[in-house]
């Protein structure tokens, strides 16, 4: 598909560094965990999870994301998608655990809402650097139990999401979903591996995307050659066994970059 035009109809500041842009187009059939390529014309095109079926939630980290912060209501971007596989859908009466770190909450908040609608029970561990950067605290709280951690201890528990995870009885969850900084996901991976829960775990990965449709190979992960844009971005724990997760990724040249 060619990019469709998406006009910004609302902007919501979520945290000092994160804001949500609402569009006049709704991707009705998008699954939680799918993403869109957002084309800031004349600048760049970057992947963004859908945080609502008509919105993305952006953290300002560099050029393109800063440009997104410059946009105002009435401005437009180009959108291609929804792309990728999305999370597997929880079943009725499933107990699921969501572990969100930083802007990784973006694809997970719609998952929490979707899961509850399907009749599942949702527990969330939400982490951020600091209190003001906690994303979608309200959205997660509205859907079930929530455990909050901040790296600097400015809110609730001081520490990392893994601290909470370590204490929880993971065996009582049918599915565990996570998205966040790779270092966090890597720790979660190790922990769940040691607890023998990898089969029930899903990780939403980030890699450098170019084509976003599974052709160019820019986003491939070792050791299986998974295309994060197409076979992912969501991978089951078993798929990531023996992978580069937590070790390295590739830059836009295809060079290996240690994490």
């Amino acid at each position: 598909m060619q990019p469709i035009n998406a006009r910004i109809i609302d902007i919501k500041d979520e945290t000092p560094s994160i804001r949500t842009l609402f569009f006049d187009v709704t991707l009705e059939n998008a699954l939680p965990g799918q993403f869109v390529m957002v084309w800031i014309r004349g600048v760049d095109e970057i992947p963004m999870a859908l945080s609502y079926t008509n919105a993305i939630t952006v953290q300002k980290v560099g050029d393109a994301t800063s440009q997104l912060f410059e946009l105002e209501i009435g401005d437009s971007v180009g959108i291609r998608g929804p792309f990728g596989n999305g999370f597997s859908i929880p079943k009725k009466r499933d107990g699921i655990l969501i572990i969100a770190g930083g802007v990784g909450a973006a694809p997970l908040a719609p998952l929490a809402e979707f899961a509850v609608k399907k009749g599942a029970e949702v527990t969330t561990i939400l982490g951020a650097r600091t209190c003001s950067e906690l994303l979608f605290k309200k959205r997660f709280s509205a859907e079930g139990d929530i455990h909050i951690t901040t790296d600097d201890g400015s809110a609730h528990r001081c520490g990392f999401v893994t601290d909470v995870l370590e204490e929880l009885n993971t065996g009582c969850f049918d599915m565990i979903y996570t998205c966040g900084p790779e270092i966090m996901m890597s720790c979660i991976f190790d922990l769940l591996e040691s607890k023998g829960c990898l089969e029930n775990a899903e990780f939403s990965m980030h890699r450098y995307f170019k084509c976003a449709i599974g052709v160019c190979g820019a986003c491939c992960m070792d050791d299986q050659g998974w295309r994060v844009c197409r076979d992912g971005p969501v991978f089951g724990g078993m798929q990531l066994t023996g992978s580069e997760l937590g070790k390295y990724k590739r830059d836009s040249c295809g060079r290996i970059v240690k994490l």
Partner: protein
Amino acid sequence: MITITGIKMDNPTILAAGVMGTTGSSMVRIAENGAGAVVTKSIGIYPKEGHPNPTMIELGSGGFLNAMGLPNPSYKNFISEIDKVHNKTETPVIASIFAGTPEDFVDVAMGLEPARPSAFELNVSCPHAEGYGSLIGCDPLAVEKVTEAVCDTVNVPVWVKLTPNVTDIVSIGKAAENAGADAVVAINTVKGMAIDINSGYPILGNRFGGLSGQPIKPIAVKCVYDLYSSLEIPVIGAGGISCWQDAVEIMMAGASGVQIGSAVFERIDVFNSIASGIDQFIEENSYSGIEDIIGIAHEMK
């Protein structure tokens, strides 16, 4: 089992350059999905980021536009990727290389020799990489020089990948042949462009790019047909091959093997399905082998 320029392959399907060829593990995956050989992403002297996004879009009806801009980690960082394919599969790896001058082509080729590629494919045909690619590939003399330089240096076969964006592709193919190329590959993408009517912006970051996929198949078939008429060396077909019927068609035009790129969009095991489709076609039509159909269209008058 077939042999192209001395390289033994399980079947005539070959992963085309620039598609799923940036990492060793993705090439392994393609090999496991049935490719008879894999061509790497085009590799150069220095790490290169390529053009800004959007770098590739699907146009619908099987067509794609891309302007990747030859992103690559440089030959130094690529040796280990090729090694990985050797470690995990028996599938031949053809190293696609690009550069701006004959000397640099030679440097890249020599730099990659430790990785023992089965052949080199010279990319003189990328339509959207400033200073590289089709700037050379449009000029028979430049093609001759580059080909000669690499052929003089390496001990493995050299394939030259041709651009269709020329008045006379045969003259370019002949230049390659005269300079010692062991095969030509036709075609690279066709110059093209798409504009976003909502904004007036060209969609690709590079403004224009190369058209690939089904729309270009008739163009590729014609190029292969013409090259086969005039060249002695094998022609390897590429361009819009997405099913076994397409593969048979371009082989009948004269292709000894078929490269498959964009069609991995539909299914990554397109190699398996094309290879077995060709086999079945050969059998059902009582041909004695694949060689029987190569160039057969030239005899039908």
